[in-house]
């Protein structure tokens, strides 16, 4: 075992990469849950995004178009969830699960001919001087653009929810849909917009895995990251900044565990690999005592003519 081979600067830089898919998926789901809807289909929307993004990037040669397609695919899948829960009044838990089951199958089907291909690479942002700085350079300035998009998205969602009228309406719908309806807000329409946004974000997160983090397509490659994103929203107490914190914490666990595997620590690989899931459970336990910050109408369906 050789721990000295682990470079802390690279560790932090790769931690940020590992956290980015989670950032995308979790911030999207945060908005969905703020509107009072619980979409358990994140894993399914992510994997659809992963395969759509990968296929598009390979076919067009443009990773950027890949990300656009991934957001579109995630949002398209979420339309099904929106129809089921907002119009057909289906149970949100069951609908979310069906999204995941369907997404896993569909992605395997679509991705068949893409196994073993390398996707086109996304150019890293290269700021001369800045990215050459020791320590700070690789951590802050040496990444691909999508990583910064994810962080910008967190800031944007935070600002919109906290300061804008849209954010206020979103929260109103999530806290008390009957009152919001009485005030004349279109509950169903607002929720559908939120669901679509969440789907697009999950799609981006999935594409980040298949295009940048792992750069390849394998069946079921999201491996539970969508579910961890759901846990992250609970962890963050529905606050955007804490999504960032939580995602980096989790990215840290993932990266450290991978580094320990590479360094040949005496613990078997499988036990290291299960650590992110165990830590997620642990974090959920610690934070589950406080449910006060959850949107009050979370998971409840709204039907106007009751």
């Amino acid at each position, binding site marked *: 075992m050789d721990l000295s081979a682990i470079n802390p600067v690279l560790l932090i830089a790769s931690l940020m990469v590992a956290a980015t898919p989670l950032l995308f998926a979790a911030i999207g789901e945060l908005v969905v849950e703020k509107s009072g809807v619980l979409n*358990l289909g994140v894993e399914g929307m992510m994997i659809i995004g992963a395969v759509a993004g990968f296929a598009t990037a390979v076919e067009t040669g443009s990773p950027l178009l890949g990300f656009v397609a991934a957001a579109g695919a995630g949002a398209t899948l979420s339309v*099904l969830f929106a*129809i*089921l829960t907002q*119009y*057909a*009044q*289906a*149970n949100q*838990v*069951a*609908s979310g*699960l*069906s999204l995941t*089951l*369907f*997404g*896993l*199958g*569909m992605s*395997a*089907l679509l991705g*068949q001919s893409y196994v073993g291909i390398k996707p086109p690479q996304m150019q890293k942002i290269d700021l001369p001087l800045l990215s050459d700085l020791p320590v700070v350079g690789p951590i802050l300035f040496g990444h691909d653009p999508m990583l910064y998009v994810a962080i910008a998205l967190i800031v944007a969602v935070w600002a919109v929810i906290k300061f804008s009228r849209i954010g206020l309406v979103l929260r109103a719908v999530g806290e008390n849909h009957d009152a919001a309806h009485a005030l004349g807000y279109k509950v169903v329409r607002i929720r559908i917009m939120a669901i679509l946004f969440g789907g697009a974000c999950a799609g981006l997160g999935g594409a980040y895995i298949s295009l940048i983090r792992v750069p390849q397509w394998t*069946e079921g490659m999201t*491996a*539970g990251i969508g*579910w*961890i994103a*759901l*846990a992250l929203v*609970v962890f963050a107490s529905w606050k955007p900044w804490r999504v960032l914190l939580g995602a980096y914490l989790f990215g840290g666990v993932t990266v450290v565990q991978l580094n320990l595997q590479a360094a040949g620590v005496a613990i*078997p690989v*499988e*036990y290291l*690999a*299960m650590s992110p*899931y*165990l830590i*997620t*459970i642990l974090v*959920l*336990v610690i934070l*589950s*005592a406080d*449910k006060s910050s959850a949107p009050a109408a979370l998971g409840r369906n709204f*039907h106007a*003519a*009751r």
Partner: protein
Amino acid sequence: MIRLEKRPQPSRAWSLATPLLAVLATMIAGGLLFAALGKDPVEAIRTIFWEPLFGEFAFYYRPQLLVKGAPLVLIAIGLSLGFKAGIWNIGAEGQYIIGALFGAGVGLAFYPAEAWYIFPLMVIAGGLGGWIWAMIPAFLKVRFGTNEILVSLMLVYVAEQFLASMSLGLLKNPEGHGFPGSRNLQQYDSAHNADLIAGSGMHWGVVAALIAVIFAYVLLNRHITGYHIRLTGEAPRAARFAGVNPTRLILFCLGTSGMLAGLAGMFEVSGPSGQVSIDFNVGYGFTAIIVAFLGRLHPVGILLAGGLMALTYIGGDIAQSNLQLPSAAIQVFQGMLLFFLLAFDLLTNFRLSLGKPEVA
């Protein structure tokens, strides 16, 4: 303009008709999908639904129906109890794996001794393994209020890693020339879950599934616990006033479903699949969720739904070899089924009416 009016009572007729409608709609949508893949849709649907039952080689496929259906029914029965009460065990796949590991572990511990009590002990161990694994989310929920959906799901990934480590380590076949995976229990008489009537597909897991169906039916219709489960699902507040103890209900529902999933895993590993290997689990724990809903969370419905889902597995295999239909297409097909079912459920709880909304 189409409006929805909530029915005072869910319609019984629609509740029975919607699964059939969903199957029909899935056939149509699936046919379109198969056509998009360049296959003859009619031929594909016929292959999936007709060939295993009445085709030329049906004598071979019909026993498979029991083999594939039994674990699905066993797991789905357990899940349905919780689902009815709003307790969501999504981690049956993990409980299935741990049950298989416990069962196989006990069997392999006795190797090569032959004795009548080995198989019963394995059954107990399998059920216990699944029960323990389900007790983790159950305990965390009742003690700390932790979300059981996320915890039970995380534990699936933990269980998968555990399975990998066991088939590479402790349970690895010492005579396996270094390949991962345990000894084959099919070649170890005392631990083999063989067909009760040779070639029928009828093994102990099928018997257990039938017992579970009867048990669940009696429980739900004749027993106070079943009443509490239904009451909690339909009116949680009323349930509390009626003296339902939520803690006990959570422990019971999650524990029972975990135990049944563990049993399913144990019967599978000691029978049809035969050995513990890295990817021995094939997603029955997740497909059982579809089975539970398709069966309307009703024991008899689940029995029928399990048969139907087994049919799609077997028919899918046939379509894969005869028509080169990708195996993932069947997974999509099953996912669609759940979609349509949830969508058509609308008709059970609401009445569609045409015309402008009246001002009340």
